[in-house]
């Protein structure tokens, strides 16, 4: 096998983990929705709790990326990472919840902080 193919495919264990921990959990819920179809109360207490926990897990992962940043992001000082998030959030709120404005503002603050002389 060529080097290119080896790099492209990578470690096959990781692909098995992807199927077990990524693909199956997602397809399980989708196909359950397809099979059961109806009879679901969107406002049920259990579903509300699940939704709240799912949102909090996602929020936790967002925090994790900022607190324990992966790869190149670790080269950005913590104060600048948090500053970019706060600035982006301010722009998001000021523009009546524009995702685009929030992302662009956060990125500009981070890049300006990196490139500012001194």
């Amino acid at each position: 096998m060529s080097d290119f193919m080896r790099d492209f495919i990578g470690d096959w264990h990781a692909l098995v983990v992807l199927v077990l921990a990524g693909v199956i959990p997602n397809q399980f819920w989708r196909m359950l929705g397809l099979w059961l179809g109806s009879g679901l109360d969107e406002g049920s207490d259990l579903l509300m709790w699940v939704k709240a926990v799912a949102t909090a897990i996602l929020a936790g992962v967002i925090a994790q990326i900022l607190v324990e940043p992966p790869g190149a992001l670790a080269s950005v000082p913590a104060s600048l990472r948090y500053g970019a998030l706060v600035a982006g959030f301010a722009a998001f709120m000021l523009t009546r919840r524009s995702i685009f404005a929030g992302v662009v503002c956060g990125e500009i603050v981070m890049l300006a902080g990196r490139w500012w002389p001194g």
Partner: protein
Amino acid sequence: MRLPPLDSPQWNSTLRAFAWGMSAISATILSAVLFVTYIGIGALSHEAQFSLLWAILATVLVWAGPAQIILITTLASGASIVQSAIAVTVSAIRLFPMVVAVLPLMRTEKTKRRHLVLVAHFTAVTLWVECYRFLPHVPRERRVAFIHGLGCGLMSIGLTATIIGYELAANLSQTLASAILLLTPLAFLFSTARNSRTLADILALVLGLVLYPVAALMNSGLDILVSGVVAGTIAYGVHKWREAP
């Protein structure tokens, strides 16, 4: 974009309906959000040292942004397969009510369950939102074809962005690569905030952000589950308490 009127002969062809669905991706700002999100996911996959094939398969087969970043981040931080799978499963539960809500919009008497498998697979938050916007303008018997087109279009965007993000993270300078990686937390924070309407949603988001660093101090390996369950339960509890007469 203007779709043809419901009684137009343009809707007679299934292929035409598929093409209209595919071109509908140009009519939504959510395509841009999806693109940015998947650029970040591609970059994150690279930094977590997954292969490009892994990143491509994750986008095509998982097709849920939050589940993908939870999977990548937990595995990269050394969580076990079981812990990652639990965190991903919880995040994926929200797909269940989405599928249940979306399928009746396109079901006819002639629709068999197997015709809807691909629709269920494409269902994620972007498609779910767009179904409500576009489907009233699509004749019922062409809706499955239309959604197949829309789903393929959205997935092409996600797939292209995954590959671009992966290659950018691999080849850019450290500063630019970190800018690409910052896209993920920014895009997810703001899109989740935008979708948060109830008090429970907002509290879950804020508490989840704040409690993760606290839970991480315990270094249990289950940090993300602990902070998620605690923050989500408090948010739910406060919501119930406020609702009580």
